[in-house]
Structure formats: C-alpha cells, structure tokens
C-alpha cells in the first residue's frame, strides 16, 4: 500500500492547507474501492454475470451464424450480438443487463452508510479532517467505479467471444455506439446504486435497505407491465386502443428499466428511429437505412437525460438526508 507520501515527501503539518493535499472523498473512495474489489460479493457477481453474458452471446452468435449465409448486408451485424437471442436462452445481452444489472448497483450501495453505523465506524470517520459530504461522495464514486469496471469487462468479454465465434470485427461506428451504450449502462446502474445508497441512509439496518432496494427493482422488473397497464387505464379507456397504448408507453417511462431498454435498442440498432408506438402507416414506404451515431444520439437523448436526472435526484436525496442526519443513530 503506497500512499500520499510519494506525492508529498516533505509536507510539514503546519504547511498542510486545504488544496495542498488529496481531497477527502478520494481517500474514502480509494478505501471503499479496495473493499469492493476484495469482497465476496464482487466475486459472486462477476461469476453470475459472466456466465449469463456468455450464455447470451453464445446464443446470439449461434443465431447469427445460422442466418448469416442467407442474409446479405445486415446493418451493424456485430451489434446484433448484444440484441438478438435464440432458444434456449430467453434474453439477449442488453435485456439481461437491463434486468440483472440493477443488482450490481444495489449490492454495492445497500450498506454504504448503515454499514458504517452498525460497525460503529461512522463517528470515527466523520471526526477525521474531511467534510461530511466527502464520505457519501467517496462511497458513490467507488461504487460507480466498480460498476463501470464490471460493465466494461462484460462488454469486452461479449465482444471478444463474438469476434472469435463470428470472425467479424466491429467497425469504428459500432465501437462508438458500444461506448455510448456503456456510458448509458453505467448511468442506469448508477441510478440503482444511488437508490440503494439512499436506502442505506434512511434505514438503520442493512437488511431493511437491501429489502427495500431489491423490492423496488423486482416490482418494476416483474410487475411493471401490469402496473403500467392499470395506470394507463386511468388516463385513456381501453376501448380506444391507440390512446390506451400511447398512455401505457408514456406511463411506463416512469420506470428506469423502460428508459434503459428503449435507449439501448436505439443505440445498438442503427435502423431504429423511434421507440414506443409506431403505426404501420407511419413507416409505410420508409427506406431501411442506418442512422448516423449523431442522429441516434438525438433520438435517444430524452431517455438518457431522463435517466441522468433520476440518478441525480435520487443521489441528491441520499446526500441531503445524510448531511442532516445525526451522527448518533
């Protein structure tokens, strides 16, 4: 373990002024990151996600190989690795990230603050010369870093298997689409990290905060569709199918899972130009052509900004609550 000694070989106590030394949140983040990387939950998560990703990509590449001889000029073939699936794997990679990745965020956040309380380390930590907000910021940054590392590793893993199985290399455009998608996925998982961190501030026991976060995730992931259908019925009667479906799509965008799924399909499929309800009359005689990345980004920006805003709001709630909380439980 090296430390700041190398950077400040001759700093004298009297010379120490804010700004001259490492920011407190960096010190907290570094320690938290080391904890995460050495934790059992990290090993378990990477194993589970790795197996699921491998299954998804083998299934997708199998499907692509089956149709490849017959098909000509499929646009952005490489990205299909992430978005198509065949039996017996039920989900393509993107869908399974949308469904499972929240677990990543929850696992690295649910005991962020109440864990310190339970161990009795919080009073000691906040009595050190760092600002109180640096504790929660450092923890959030460490969580995001681990999540980013894991998602990037998974994406590269899937790409690698794909290149090996299909023998095609991604184009520059595909690589940049994947990169943007990775940022999207990190924001999405960051939202769940923020939610779990907020729960760890509000609930004294780690079990409670884990339960609340996982509960939110399961309700949205499993029962979201029923809920949104019922809600949509309040705004538009089921008799008017188009109005009702439009309302369903609008309501379902409350859920970050919807936003992520929509944004993912827009980013990873350049032929997609809209989400939600598209009538056949609207696409009648439209030519199948690829959108440029810039155009896709324009289409996807509402979803991306929506996710970013949700993440910011939830983290702000955690932040404010933590700042106002008494050090003693």
């Amino acid at each position: 373990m090296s430390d700041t000694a190398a950077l400040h070989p001759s700093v004298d106590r009297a010379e120490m002024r804010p700004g001259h030394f490492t920011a407190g949140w960096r010190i907290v983040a570094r320690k938290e990151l080391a904890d995460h990387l050495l934790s059992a939950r990290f090993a378990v998560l990477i194993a589970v996600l790795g197996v699921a990703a491998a299954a998804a990509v083998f299934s997708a590449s199998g499907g692509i190989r089956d149709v490849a001889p017959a098909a000509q000029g499929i646009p952005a073939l490489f990205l299909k690795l992430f978005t198509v699936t065949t039996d017996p794997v039920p989900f393509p990679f993107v869908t399974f990230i949308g469904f499972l990745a929240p677990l990543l965020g929850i696992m690295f956040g649910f005991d962020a603050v109440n864990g310190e309380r339970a161990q009795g380390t919080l009073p000691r930590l906040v009595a050190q010369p760092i600002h109180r907000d640096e504790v929660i910021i450092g923890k959030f940054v460490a969580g995001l870093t681990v999540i980013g590392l894991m998602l990037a590793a998974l994406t590269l893993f899937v790409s690698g298997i794909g290149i090996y199985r299909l023998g095609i290399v991604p184009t520059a455009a595909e690589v940049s689409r994947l990169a943007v998608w990775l940022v999207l996925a990190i924001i999405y998982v960051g939202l769940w990290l923020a939610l779990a961190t907020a729960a760890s501030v509000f609930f004294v026991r780690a079990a409670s905060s884990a339960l609340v976060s996982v509960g939110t995730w399961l309700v949205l992931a499993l029962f979201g569709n029923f809920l949104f259908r019922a809600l949509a019925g309040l705004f538009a009667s089921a008799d008017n199918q188009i109005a009702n479906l439009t309302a369903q799509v609008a309501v379902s965008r409350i859920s970050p899972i919807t936003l992520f799924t929509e944004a993912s399909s827009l980013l990873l499929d350049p032929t997609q130009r809209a989400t939600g309800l598209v009538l056949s009359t609207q696409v009648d005689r439209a030519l199948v052509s690829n959108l440029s990345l810039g155009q896709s980004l324009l289409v996807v920006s509402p979803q991306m900004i929506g996710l970013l805003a949700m993440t910011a709001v939830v983290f702000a709630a955690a932040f404010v609550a933590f700042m106002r909380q008494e050090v003693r439980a």
Partner: protein
Amino acid sequence: MATIVTRELTKRYGETVAVDGLDLELRRGEVFGLLGPNGAGKTTTILMMLGLTEPTSGTVEVLGFDPARNALDVKRHVGYMPDAVGFYETLTGRENLRYTARLNRMPSPEGQIDGLLGTVGLGAAADDPVGTYSRGMRQRLGLADALLKSPDILILDEPTTAIDPEGVSEMLTLIRSSADAGMTVLLSSHLLHQVQEVCDRVAIFVRGRVAAEGSPSELAESNPGPEVVEVGLDSDADLFDHLDGVPFVEDIASGRAPRTWRVTVAPGTTSDLMAVLVASRARVISLTRLDHDLDAVYRRHFRREGAHV
C-alpha cells in the same frame, strides 16, 4: 491557556434539553473528567465540540475555532475516541490505523502506527483482522487511533467501559502521560471511581447541567454530606438496639461482610457516633469511614437531581 471554552452551550432535541447552558473551560495539559450517568448529555457535548452536531444556542471554541464553522480546523487537531468505538472488521488493526492516517494526510505514518500499536499493547495482534479482537482490544486500538494524528486535544468518550481492571489502569496511565506531554484530555465517563484518580479536574454532569466542578479533593471537601461508616461487631448483636433514637443517625443497613453494618450519619458526626457506641457498650471491633472518595459526592448529586423528577 484555555483550549476548549463553552459558553451557555445548549442543545435541544424537540422538547428534550440534552445540554443546558453549559460553561466549561479546559486548559492545556490537564485531564478533565466529564462525569455523569448515561443520558446526562456528555456525548452530545462532545459532538458539539467536534462540530458533528450544531448547538441550539451558546458557543463552543476549540483552539480558537468555532467547530460549527471551521470543523476541519478543529478535527485536524482533535483526536476522538467515540463511545463503543468501532473498526472495519475485515481490515487488520494496522490497516484501520492506516486509513485514519491517510484521512489525516500523514505523509509517512508507518513508524508512528507501529509505535502506537506497541504502546497500547496490540503489537502482536496488529496484523489480525479487527473482527477477531475483544472489546478491550478494540478500545485500546481506539486510543491508538485517537492519538495517531498527534492531537492537541484528546477527547475520550467512555474509554474504560469494556476493559478489565488491569487494562483500565494501563489506559489511565496512557491518558495521564498524554496530558503530561501537553495535550488537553477530555474524558467522559459514568464510572467515576475508575477515572477520578487520573483527573485534574472534574465536572459532575447531570441532566445537561454541571452540578459540581473542581478537583476531586476540592469537590469532596466543599460538598459536606452525610458520612458513611462501616461498623464491625464481634457478636450477632443488632446495631439497631444500640443506636435507636440517636438523632444524627440517618440510616442503618447491613454491611457487605457478616456482622458489619453501614451507618449513615449527619456531616461531621462520625466521632459522636463512636462516643455513642462506646457509651452503649457495643462490642465494636472495627470502624471504617467509607465516603472519602468522590463516589459519595457523585451519588449525592444524582439523588439531589433525581428529586426534581
């Protein structure tokens, strides 16, 4: 030189007044004992000194800084060991101290960490995970943790609670030597008899207010109260028969050992008690004054305060 000064310091939680108009002045190089029962407001007072909770009214100054505004300046110079101190269970004692050193931006802390671990007697366990430590070991690690930043002020909240008697006297010796090296030590405890010997001054803190303040011996002298005498008899005779109707005897109870009695008499009447016993031909074989330490002062204040409930 005053290092911690509080003026009219008050903290309310809703209707409850945790600290009520506290005036304290701590000097460099002294051990100051903040003594009182659980729930007296000791921890709240400490948290206000560290800027970890804001006073409802009144002021605190620590080394000339206002902890509510310049929390970092205060925390840079104050070592704090909280009540029921905790550490990261999966990290070793040494790693836990390293984290504290890093948070204090200590450039090369390894030598100091080694030295402190040795001083508190954890040299052998330094590289074991804290999860394997006993509560006493955690408390000693807590002291090392608080001393690590070479603080000007050392604040210890209930430092002797979970330690065995031998550990307590070691802990107190360490505290004393820290003060002798020029630190101001603020010690909070509800175990008065354990810490009184190490304190230069104490404040007896009850229900958010200081009931008495001064050096332990001053306090004992300036608060004349009932005197407690343990009387040993050489037979099974009942002491009540000898002391029945004596006006200055306030209470008689059986003592710890067989054939001993605990007699509470009005201030300054122990010698009168002896005269009465001799005159009544009680077969006294021993007579011991029990109330010479602060315990009695302390108990008296609790009883007096309790009467207002």
